[in-house]
């Protein structure tokens, strides 16, 4: 398999993993019983979600631009 394909696939998978993990685990509130613990378990979980999206879609640019295998 070409380096280009491997790196692109990795970018998509890492991006998707970041989105899923931040959405399902990191951004959930610590509890639902009081306002004090209603923040996400991990701060900046939303930022991690956006980062995952950016990494996943950047794979399109990488696949289009990278010429390492040629």
């Amino acid at each position, binding site marked *: 398999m070409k380096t280009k394909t491997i790196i692109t696939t990795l970018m998509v998978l890492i991006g998707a993993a970041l989105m899923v993990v*931040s*959405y399902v685990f990191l*951004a*959930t*509130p610590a509890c639902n019983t009081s306002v004090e613990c209603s*923040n*996400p378990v991990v*701060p*900046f*979980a*939303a*930022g991690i*979600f*956006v980062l995952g*999206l*950016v990494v*996943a*879609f*950047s794979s*399109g*640019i990488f*696949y*289009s*631009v990278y*010429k390492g295998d040629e």
Partner: protein
Amino acid sequence: MVTTEAMPQRQPTRDTGLPQGVGRLTPTWILFFVAMIVITAFGFYAYLLQVNNGLVVTGLRGLGTMAGATWGLYVAYYVYFIGVSFAGITVAAMIRIFRIEKLEPVARIGELLTVVALILGALAILADLEHPWRAIVNLVKLGRPQSPFFGTFTMVVAGYLFASLVYLYVTSRKDAASLAGRPSRFQGLYRFLAAGYKDTSDQRKIDRRVTFWLAVAILPLLVIAHSTVGFVFGLQAGRPGWFGTLQAPGFVVLAGVSGIGNLIMLAAIVRVATHTKDRITIDAFAWLGKLLLGLLVTYLYFTAVEILTITYQPGATEQGLSEALLSGTYAWIFWGAILSLVGAALLLIWQALTREWSIGLIVATGVLVNIGAVAKRYLIVVPSQTHGQLLPYPVGSYAPNWVEWAVVFGLFALGAFMIGGFMKVFPIVPLEEAE
């Protein structure tokens, strides 16, 4: 087919060597840019007044005891701008997935429209906040993508905007490479954007593969994104008029209506401004018209179902709200919107039946559906706050004042400036081989 008569229109601009008037500022263009800068500056001045003195300088007031509306013109236009963004990626994705070649000349216009509309949508919602900097910091730190409010920003604005920018870049590299070989003041920029692009059959295959998969990935994101905006309203059980299952699909469909309508208007302006009448032909407009008709008929059906539901056996609050909409304070806006949307549908149906499409009439439908869409967005946002109180508060009222209008017009001018600026730096219509 390129006609002989049309050829001179597409000759590169003499003084820049670039096609479609890129890099060439005529007096009309200078006047346009100055006008847009002045209007944007006035909008920014109004916004600074708001930042310094608070939202009290606007027509916005608290719900309940203040008998006002906390979401007004800014939120209505936020929803509108996000809706407009629907068009670009939809059209671009359809071209790649279904290979609709006749729409290819308007693909980049649509992609640009998406990017600009998303930026304006983000600015419109920031304008609604009294302390926007707090939102900017806390959104990333404390926001939860599960919440429709924050999901709107993480998925719609951030994700959707980035995905659209990637799509716009990937589909523009070939033209950037083509222009990089010509001496011009933007040569360095084109070389940078081209990033070593070589127009070979392998590269074309790669481009097709990338744009296809990007389109496949973006389409579900698009539906989720527009549904999420609908959920901001549709999930609020304590607000009659908002709570309902039709909000999310209704938002997606009306987004398509306003977005395609805007794309039609912009394509009509571009074909004249860039002398590309032979590229953006009646075929492209007819395709957009048919697409618009399908979405419009669906939305009118949703509207009929919505009216029937709120008037059939309404509770006391729903009855007050439906009376305000159908025969009260908001009736002129409601019936104006229905008239615009039905009028546009009739114009399109007539053209579809006779199979004689006219660019002028299709553009007229684009204008009509956008008038209808703005009015419907306003009606979605405001009446449920002024007339949808479940608690025993008096009926409220809301009228946007000059500050809000100045900010909104400023946003429109900023959007026009961005699109005009793009047109002077890069061909907005994809180049043909001969160009």
